[in-house]
Each structure stands twice: as C-alpha cells, then as structure tokens.
C-alpha cells in the first residue's frame, strides 16, 4: 500500500452524483432568454462546383432572423494544423462531401430554421466523385483541393537505420497487407452549442468539445474577435474520443449568427450530422514487410500506408505521422522505414480517434508478428518478451521510454489467462490470441507552433479556509479528468478529496490544450500538483511565522497540520478562528490543528491565497522531420489476451473473455483506470467485429444511425480481467501516465490472432464479419482439398 491518502484509491467521481440524478448539464440542455435556433444547409452532393446560392426565399419566412453563407462569413481558412488550414465556415467555390456546410439560418424556433434552410437554392455543377484513395490519386483525377493536384494532402517519408540492407540480413521476411474501415466516434452526445455575443462585444460559447482552447483560437481567427473577448465553456460532455478535438461548423455558425443578431443562438447536431461531421478513424491501407533473425529478433520493418482522409485534413497530418511512428516502438527494432500518404476523397473528413493513427497499423503488425512467431516456432508471448524494450531505452526514432512496463504486462496476462494450457490446445472453433499496444502520454508539442504552456492550473482557498477551489481549463469529457485532478490537488495540498471544488473546461480558467492524445492526467496533473504545492507552502509559511516553527517541521495531511516534532500549542489560532466564526454552523474542535484554521490565518495575513502551476514538456528527442508527432514525455503500453468462439458453420465470431494489462505508470484512481481499459476494449471490439461507415456510389452515408452502424451493446462485450501495471513514470505527476487511448491498441490484433488459433484463418480486412470468416474458412478447406 502507498503512503498516499487520496490517490491510488477508488474514490467516486466528483461528478457522479450530478450524472446519476440527471442534474448534470450538457450543451443541448442549455438555453437563454430570447434565444434563437440555428439550422444548417448541407450539401446533397459529394463533389460539385457551386454556381449560385439564392437565400431570398429563406429570408422571407416569418420568424427567420438571419441567413448566412460564405458572403457573410468570409472565407478565412482554418482547420486543426496550421500547415493545412483547408476548411472554411461555409463552402464558397465547391462542395467536397455529402454534408459539406453551405449556409446557416437563425430563427425563432428550430422548425422554422429547418424550413428556411430547405428553401435555400443552390445551383451546382457536378464533378467526379472519388470515394477511395486509389481513384483519387489516379492520373487526371480532379483535385478536391486545388493546391494538391494528385489529391495527396500530406505525405511522410522516414527511415531509421537502413531497412533494405537490414532485410537482406534477415532469416525470414514476409509482407502482408491490411485494411480497416472508417470508424465513427459513436459518442452518445451529439455536438451542440449555444453562442451569446453580448452588447459589450464579448462572445460566450458553450459547446460540447474536447478542446476549449483550440476552439477559442480558431473562432478568434475566423470571426476576428480578440482572444480575450471570447470565452469557450465546456459543460459536461457526453463522450468525445477524438472527433470533438477541433472546432466544428455549428460553433462558428452559432457565434456568427449571434454576433449578427445580438441574440443567443443554439445549434444542435442530429445523429446523421454527427456521422457527416465525422472526424473519426481514417481508413488505412497498410503494407508491412518485416524481417526477423533466426533467433526471433525483429530486425527490420518496411511500412507503406495510404490513409483515406476524406474531404478535409482535420488532424490528418498528425494521423499520417502517428500511423508510422508509433509502430516499432515497443520492440528493439533498429531499422524502420515508413512511407505514408494521406489522400483527399469526397467523404466526411477523418481525424483523431482513440489510439490516433496507430490502431489499424498495430492490428496489422501484431497479426503479422503472430504469423512470424509461428513460422519460427516460438510462442507469441515469448517472441514478444524476446523483443520488447525496457525502461530507459530509446527507440530507433528517438522516443525515450522513461518508464516501460511492457514485460510486466506480458507476464501478467500470461499468468492470468491460463495461456500455457490454452494456446493451440483449445477445441476447434475456440481460440486464444494475444497482442501488445503502445501509445503516447500526451502530444509533446501543441498543434500550432508555440512556446505555450500545455496546461495551467490555479488554486484559490476560500476565505474560511474550508474549500479548495481548483481552476483548470482541462476538458472533462467523461474520462474522469475532473476526478483525477481533484485527487491530485487534494493529495498534493494535504486536504481531503471532498474539500476540493473543481472548476474546469472554461478558457477563463487558464490555458489547457484539452482532452486529446491522452494528456490530461500527465500534463494538467503536473500543473495542478504544482499549484497545490505552492498553496501549501504559502499556508505553512504563515503558520511558521505565527507559531515560530520551521516549515520543514510541519506538513499538511488529510486536512490537518502535522507537527513532526514536539506537540504544539495552537490555542491562539483556534481562538481566533472561533471568534471570527461565532455563530457559524461549523465549529472546529478536536486536538489537532486543521488545515481550515491554518488557511484562515493565512488569509488574514495575506489576503486571498492563490497558487498557480504550469506545465510544458521539457526537451524531447528527435531532430528529424516529423519528430514532433510521436514524441511525448512518456509512453503507455499494454498487452492483451482474448478468447473467442468461431461458429464454423456461419463464421460468426464471439469474444468470450479478455485479459488486459496496462502500464499507466501509477493509477491515480484505480476505478477510472479500469473504466478506461474496459471502454477502450469495447471500442476496439466494435471496430474489430462490426463497425463500418458505408457509402453509396455517390458518397452518401448508407448507415448514419446506431441501428445500422452497430456499436457494441451490453450483449456483445464480455467481462474484462483488468490488470493495472504501475511502472512509476518519472515524468508524470506521482508517476502517472496515460491509459485512455493506449488501451485500445492490442484488442483488434488479439481478436485476429485468437480467430487464427480457433479456425486457422488470417483475416486482413476489418470488420471481421461472419461472411469474411466463413469465406476464409471455405477457402482454406478448398486449398486443403487440392
């Protein structure tokens, strides 16, 4: 057991009561007096020139207060990465996917706004539609963006070591191809926002986002409002998983409409619009050539990948890097070459989604490693154990593994799954498989080039000393950052968890890059810890003077002042407190001096006690081009074992059990860590077995509903045996690092490898539908027959 009082426990979430009683408010729950409702006009065509937009009919409808197109909004380009600002609020020259936004209406009620939007007349000239990367790259294809004539929006070429030479040195070399499908974020809460531009020229935007900070910056740029006059407030958010990690059109449109009408404007996406806005998982076409030595040493990896990016770049530049850079890292691989191409197509834009860029690559490679292990006659776990890196090692692309419990993860899953008695020994149709995972613990650099702090925090003590107000702009999106940060504050300051009151998610509370790349616990955690330690020392300083005891002889723990040496007479302080709070409900008694009394004395001495903290990563490795994507202050890792049943007659796969070990450095909240692991595995299972956004030949989504786009239900998910590995990350607050995204990494390949163990077939295309498995089984039988 640790010496900690608050962290490393299973304390309930700070927002649990609000959420379980229905009191928690999300963006769509908000309203304001005199509020207008906004609606969008979106393109019915996937690729077309805009010849004319006529809004006159829409403007003539009673109750319509404003109609805006690019003419009113301007055509300032924005996006996620400044290197590819390729979006505008509304289309002006052409539309690039079914759903591209053309206009917005504000009206007195939603029905009127919808009706008016439907009356906007747009004349188009249709262009050829490209729905896969290979068509889009063909000679003579019409560029979706003029600046990129071959529709390749971003490409990456990296080589570490000398791959071609290294492959010649190998005992066994094999090449495999793998493709996944476009996955949707599938969060339960559709995006919604409420914008209010007031008479003083201040814009307040309540919105369902993972990144209030980036939303604030883009709105400032596009609408030309100074940063300090924009407040972005994130209420509770019903899940994000990546797609909410950038500004969206309703945020911009509602803000513009509010500026123009002077009234609050609310906009809410419906589920189909969530699918259209997308920003979810890319489709990746991987080709991997791996070479190993006879003893099982992984020696070289040559990797080519094409990403189907959709109509805009969004996070795509980072995605195309991540798809290559994260892959080799868990293993002692010396030679790695990567060529990645992100291609524009006429589909909704893809972006960052849980396990950003790395999930399909990991699935492809971990399946290939399973094949290689079998070829070499080595147990897949032993094969990994032979190759995995350990703490302190630096990867061939300069990732510093300052903590790395991969070996411990592998040993844990082996021990907890009866692997030795099951692998290769289960009856036909039943199988067991394993795989490893790896992910960053926070992007090492902000999305825009800057020396900015990545997270700031402020702690203010209430004047009675009884409440610790923690201010952070971090984004609680369901992952539990409010809880974890409150726990860190309580631990570092020495107060009880329930004494901390957290204010989060508003750009008014500081700078925080937000909830993406698994960064809140490590980065905001550091800032919060620092702020708490600052406040602690301020209180102790006052106390030291007052009681004439050196600071180092005192501490604060569990809400009490600890006198390390002799007992101390603090009756003077107590009587001051009692005198000042005569008649108050809460009177302090007992034989220990409370933090509350000490904090009150500090307030009387100095005024409001405020402490701040700020964090940015120190110098990170990598001087090569693209080193900014993938370098992180720390790396999480994981290993997983899955057992499946395959119906030999139909090909249907059922996942029976999952054993997952994840190195999160140090678990601030053990229940939350398990929750992240279980949730990640569930999303991975869905992507493995049935999730696929489908399109018709004109680029329209065929299944933009949860009825037709299936995410796992309670009947699809088995129970997960979750094993927390704590490697004590030196760069993390209290040793903590990520769990939220890395945990998804091993799931798909572990399922693939279990299917092979069950029925002897390899599936190279997701999702693993019954049809694909059935056909593979039949194919195998046919070959065997010959």
């Amino acid at each position, binding site marked *: 057991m640790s010496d900690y009082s608050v962290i490393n426990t299973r304390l309930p979430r700070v927002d649990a009561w609000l959420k379980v009683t229905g009191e928690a408010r999300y963006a769509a729950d908000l309203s304001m007096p005199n509020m207008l409702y906004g609606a969008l006009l979106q393109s019915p065509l996937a690729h077309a020139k805009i010849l004319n937009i006529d809004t006159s009919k829409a403007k003539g409808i009673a109750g319509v207060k404003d109609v805006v197109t690019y003419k009113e909004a301007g055509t300032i380009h924005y996006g996620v990465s400044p290197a590819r600002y390729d979006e505008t609020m509304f289309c002006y020259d052409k539309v690039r996917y079914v759903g591209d936004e053309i206009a917005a209406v504000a009206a007195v009620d939603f029905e009127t706004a919808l009706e008016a939007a439907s009356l906007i007349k747009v004349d188009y000239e249709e262009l050829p539609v490209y729905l896969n990367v290979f068509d889009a790259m063909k000679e003579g294809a019409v560029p979706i963006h003029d600046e990129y004539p071959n529709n390749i929006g971003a490409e990456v070429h990296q080589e570490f070591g000398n791959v071609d030479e290294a492959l010649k040195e190998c005992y066994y070399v094999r090449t495999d191809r793998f493709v996944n499908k476009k996955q949707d974020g599938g969060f*339960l809460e559709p995006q919604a926002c409420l914008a209010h531009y007031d008479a003083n020229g201040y814009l307040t935007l309540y919105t369902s986002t993972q990144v209030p900070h980036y939303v604030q910056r883009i709105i400032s740029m596009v609408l030309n409002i100074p940063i300090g006059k924009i407040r972005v407030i994130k209420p509770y958010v019903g899940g994000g998983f990546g797609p909410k990690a950038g500004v969206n059109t309703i945020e911009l449109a509602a803000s513009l409409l509010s500026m123009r009408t002077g009234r609050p404007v609310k906009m809410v996406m419906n589920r189909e619009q969530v699918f259209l806005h997308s920003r979810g998982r890319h489709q990746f076409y991987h080709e991997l050539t791996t070479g190993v030595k006879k003893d099982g040493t992984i020696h070289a990896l040559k990797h080519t990948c094409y990403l189907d990016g959709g109509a805009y770049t969004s996070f795509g530049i980072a995605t195309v890097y991540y798809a290559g850079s994260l892959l080799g890292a868990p293993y002692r691989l010396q030679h790695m070459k990567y060529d990645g191409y992100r291609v524009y197509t006429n589909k909704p834009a893809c972006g960052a989604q849980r396990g950003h860029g790395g999930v399909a690559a990991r699935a492809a490679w971990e399946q290939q490693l399973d094949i290689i292990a079998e070829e070499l006659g080595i147990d897949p776990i032993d094969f990994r154990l032979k190759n995995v890196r350990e703490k302190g090692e630096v990867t061939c692309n300069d990732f510093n593994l300052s903590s790395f419990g991969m070996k411990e993860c592998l040993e844990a899953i082996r021990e907890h799954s009866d692997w030795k008695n099951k692998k290769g020994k289960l009856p036909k149709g039943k199988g067991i498989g394993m795989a490893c995972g790896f992910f960053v613990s926070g992007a090492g650099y902000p999305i825009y080039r800057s020396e900015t702090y990545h997270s700031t925090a402020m702690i203010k003590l209430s004047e009675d000393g009884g409440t610790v107000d923690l201010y952070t702009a971090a984004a609680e999106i369901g992952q539990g950052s409010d809880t974890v940060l409150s726990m860190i504050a309580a631990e570092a300051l020495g107060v009880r968890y329930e004494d901390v009151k957290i204010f989060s998610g508003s750009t008014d509370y500081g700078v925080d890059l937000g909830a993406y790349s698994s960064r809140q616990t490590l980065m905001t955690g550091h800032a919060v810890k620092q702020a708490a330690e600052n406040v602690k020392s301020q209180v102790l300083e006052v106390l030291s003077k007052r009681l004439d005891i050196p600071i180092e002889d005192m501490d604060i723990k569990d809400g009490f002042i600890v006198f390390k040496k002799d007992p101390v007479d603090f009756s003077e302080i107590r009587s001051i407190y009692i005198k000042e709070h005569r008649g108050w409900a809460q009177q302090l008694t007992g034989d220990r001096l409370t933090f509350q009394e000490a904090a009150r004395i500090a307030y009387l001495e100095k005024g409001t006690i405020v402490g701040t903290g700020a964090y940015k990563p120190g110098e990170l490795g990598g001087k090569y081009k693209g080193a900014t994507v993938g370098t992180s202050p720390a790396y999480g890792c994981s290993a997983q074992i899955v057992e499946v049943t395959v119906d030999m007659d139909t090909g249907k796969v059922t996942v029976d059990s999952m054993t997952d070990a994840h190195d999160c450095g140090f678990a601030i909240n053990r229940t939350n860590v398990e929750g992240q692991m279980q949730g990640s595995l569930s999303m991975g299972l869905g992507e493995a077995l049935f999730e696929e956004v489908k399109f018709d030949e004109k680029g329209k989504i065929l299944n933009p509903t*949860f009825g037709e786009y299936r995410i796992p239900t309670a009947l699809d998910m088995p129970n997960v045996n979750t094993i927390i590995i704590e490697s004590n990350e030196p760069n993390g607050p209290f040793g903590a690092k990520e769990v939220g995204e890395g945990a998804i990494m091993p799931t798909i390949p572990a399922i693939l490898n279990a299917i092979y163990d069950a029925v002897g077939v390899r599936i190279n295309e997701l999702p693993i539908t019954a049809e694909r498995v059935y056909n593979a089984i039949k194919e195998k039988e046919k070959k065997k027959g010959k």
Partner: protein
Amino acid sequence: MKKLINLIVNNKSYELLVAPNRTLTQVLREDLNLLGTKEGCGIGDCGACTVILNGRPVNSCLILAVQANGCEIQTIEGVADGKNLHPIQEAFIDYGAIQCGFCTPGMVLSAKTLLERNPNPSELEIREAISGNLCRCTGYQKIVEAIKAASKKMKKKEERLDE
C-alpha cells in the same frame, strides 16, 4: 391544432397543451424542464431518452406526447427520494458505472424496471435488460456489476423490512 393532455410525471400531474407532432422527449425536456432525459439519436436506437411509462421502459423519442396522455411517467429526476439516492444510483456511483454520464439516466431507468420485475436477475438478464441502452464509454462491465450489487442491496433491505 394543439391538444390538451394530462401527464403524471414523477407523481405530479401536469395539464399540457402540445402540438401533436412533439415527442415525449421534447415535452419532458422543453415544457417540463426535465433535462435529465437525454436525446442521443432521436430514432430509438440508443436508449439515452429512456423513461418509465406505466411501469415499462420506453424510448421517449419514439412516443408522441399525445400518445402518453393519461400515462404515469418516471424520469431520472423522480428516481431519488429527495436527498436519498435509489440503491441503483448508489451502486452506479460506488462501482464506477458512470463516465460521460449521457447514457446514465436511461441506463438507471432500464435497470430499475428490471429489478422491479425481476429482483434477482442473472448477469445475462441484466445484459439483456440494458441491451437497448448504448454506452460508448464503459464497456458495460461496471454498469452490470452495479446493477448486480443494487439487486443484492435491495433484497437485503426487503428482508430487513420483512423481519
């Protein structure tokens, strides 16, 4: 043409004048300000809008308010008894069954009707009962554990009352 309807929501009776095309979700949220009922899809796929209607869990987005005329409805706001949480709510908190919280109200209400119908459900019965309530965050495990724990707790409470 608006219709006058009567709804009994969380044991309170309301006379409401509603347009015939408005869903029960809309009327609960917009007219009665019961914002704990969430809308995740609007077409009955996700279960976030689940309420209990005459003892059965329903997707309130698929029911027109006028169809609910005369019905007894319970929303998440009616589950706790003042400051005393229902055992299912307590268990959701204790077992970490909540992440983003958007599915939570519907999930709690589906669980509540299950335990009223079947005080001692098997794990499969629990999973079946909540299979119409999607959750993207938790992987369901802690929700299932919480419902199991709540059923035990409620049974104990009942036994105590019997004694």
